[in-house]
């Protein structure tokens, strides 16, 4: 059934289709509509789930951890400061091997206060061991909720699906939603391998010495790596049933491209238009949309970059003093590939500043005229006049 809805509601409908058992959430702009709609669904009985209205995001993740440990399908959603407050429990969900799914609406981090989009909230959680999937459209958001549970429950690891503040969260698009019955063909009910059960009194998370802790971390690393193939498989199975596919990376007009532009999130949509224009002018440029950030698909990135001459990466985030985070990851992936490709790192759109076709044009023109980067990072559109108010 096709409904016009904003990205936040696409998350709620996704959670409903996934028949989540327990939702624990705390309000934060711009994520709030996700849990508002879910609480309505729970109240009306449309969704048979317990909604725990916790007193903080830290407690939201702790409650999701508890629910998942009890063997229930657990879901939450947050943004920005909320995600940062959860940080400790993000690690807990991974160490406890719990397949929680969370939607995060990418929002800037304070101070100063700013509710608009950038990726520093989620990307600064890159080493906690969660899968991270970045979405471009509301349909993709809906579908990714289902992909996430499918993969997480196979790996016993949690997944974060990520959408841009406002550009997706509050933007209405047509979404083809399915009911739980239809979704069950893809996502069967959750059957936990181990859970809190008095008939089988296991102890979870006991004090563990170096002789065993090390292997537990090794297993997480190995299993998270399996997430690359499982995400591909989820996408294929989903396509067979419902005809929609995204891959873990999308290559758009990359045939014969000498310059590849890497994007994530809604900047991708803008970039598609610009790439079309450049292609129409006979320029050999292509677009690579990164969907899966963790586990990082090193082999796929290497394969894709091999045929190109130059790589440009747009980062709506900043790793202070070292550059954009996607660019760092792509550079790291290419190191050891056996070939060299210059990676141009561009910062744009932080704090929700608009990334327009002009921005993307500026980046492509820049990369076109340089053989290799002469700076490790380029900040696009910095206003060099003072931004402070002059009283």
């Amino acid at each position, binding site marked *: 059934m096709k409904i016009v809805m904003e990205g936040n509601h696409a998350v709620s409908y996704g959670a409903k289709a996934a028949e989540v058992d327990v939702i624990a959430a705390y309000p934060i702009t711009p994520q709030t509509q996700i849990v508002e709609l879910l609480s309505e669904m729970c109240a009306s009985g449309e969704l048979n789930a317990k909604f725990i209205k*916790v007193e903080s995001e830290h407690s939201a993740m702790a409650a999701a951890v508890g629910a*998942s440990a009890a*063997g*229930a399908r657990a879901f939450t959603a947050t943004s920005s400061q909320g995600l940062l407050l959860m940080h400790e429990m993000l690690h807990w969900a991974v160490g406890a091997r719990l397949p929680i799914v969370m939607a995060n609406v990418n929002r800037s981090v304070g101070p100063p206060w700013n509710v608009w989009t950038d990726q520093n909230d989620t990307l600064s959680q890159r080493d906690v061991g969660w899968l991270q999937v970045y979405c471009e459209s509301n349909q993709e958001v809906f579908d990714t909720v289902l992909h996430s549970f499918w993969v997480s429950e196979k790996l016993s690891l949690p997944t974060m699906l990520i959408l841009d503040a406002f550009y997706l969260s509050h933007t209405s698009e047509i979404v083809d939603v399915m009911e739980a019955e239809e979704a069950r063909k893809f996502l069967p009910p959750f059957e936990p391998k181990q859970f809190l059960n008095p008939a089988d009194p296991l102890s979870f998370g006991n004090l563990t010495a170096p002789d065993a802790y090390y292997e537990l971390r090794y297993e997480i690393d190995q299993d998270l790596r399996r997430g690359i193939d499982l995400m591909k498989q989820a996408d294929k199975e989903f396509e067979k049933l419902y005809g929609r596919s995204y891959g873990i990376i999308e290559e758009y007009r990359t045939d014969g491209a000498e310059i590849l532009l890497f994007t994530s999130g809604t900047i991708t949509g803008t970039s598609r238009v610009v790439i079309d224009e450049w292609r129409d002018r006979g320029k050999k440029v292509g677009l690579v949309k990164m969907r899966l950030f963790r586990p990082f698909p090193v082999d796929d990135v290497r394969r894709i970059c091999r045929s190109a001459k130059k790589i440009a990466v747009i980062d709506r985030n900043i790793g202070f003093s070292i550059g954009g985070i996607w660019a760092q990851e792509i550079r790291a992936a290419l190191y050891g590939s056996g070939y060299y490709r210059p990676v141009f790192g561009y910062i744009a759109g932080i704090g929700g500043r608009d990334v327009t076709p002009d921005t993307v044009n500026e980046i492509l023109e820049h990369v076109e005229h340089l053989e290799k980067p002469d700076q490790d990072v380029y900040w696009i559109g910095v206003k060099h006049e003072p931004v402070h108010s002059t009283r």
Partner: protein
Amino acid sequence: MSQCILPDDELMSPGHLGCQGCGAGNAMRFALKGLGPKTVIVMPACCWSVIDGPFPHSAIGVPVFHTAFETAGSTASGIKAGLVMRGDSETEVVAWAGDGGTFDIGLQALSGAAERNEDFIYVCYDNEAYMNTGIQRSGATPLGAWTTTTPTKFPKENPKKNILDILVAHRIPYATTTSIAYPEDMIAKFQKARSIRGTRFVHIFAPCPTGWKTAPELTIELARLATETLMFPLLEVFDGERYVVSKPRRIRPVAEYVKVQGRFRHLTDVDIERMQKEADRNWRRLLAKEQVSAAEAAN
């Protein structure tokens, strides 16, 4: 004082990692006698994170979920919801936290859960400091006590936080204090707690010989003295309104409790007199609350 027939079943095994004379060990043993096997324990960071034993061992015969320091209330909320959604409404979820995890770092999650009246039992076994990390003061440390962060030249200058009052203010169905010196009282209160729905709070007095600088064999005696000197009265509060206070058969002077403990060795008679006044004042207020609640119930 509540009474019961002591259950024979032992859900706690020997071989745990508690210190000699650890009061928290007795607390768990008696609690499990009252709770029975259909129980899930949620354990934030506390002495019991260690006492329970290292992987792959556990000293208790019920499932345990270890969780982060400040999350006993929130993790327990989630576990209860998860069990209910899986069709198990019978299993009792018990958050088992120390005084640091309750009075201090875990207070927010506990308050949130109590305000929502989440259906679980929250236990605070109180040894009056961060003992597991090596005896640092907590909000439960009494006035005048030595700890490694309140040295004898500058002992604790604030009185113990009244955690029971805080919980009572949430108007939860059941809030009670009990002590390892009175196993029957403790077991009966856990049995009672199990029969009530909603958030139930059980505050257990559990001396720590290591942190209090007392002889291990004095643990039970100290717990009894704490109640008899009115330093730790036993009471029950129902629905945040009705108080039932246990009156000790005889009341002893606070000095008898204080003078046998190394953590109070530096105190002068003037200091002890101040503690006595504080204990008397708290007792009077408690009796007054009981009277008021009885009068309200009669009306």
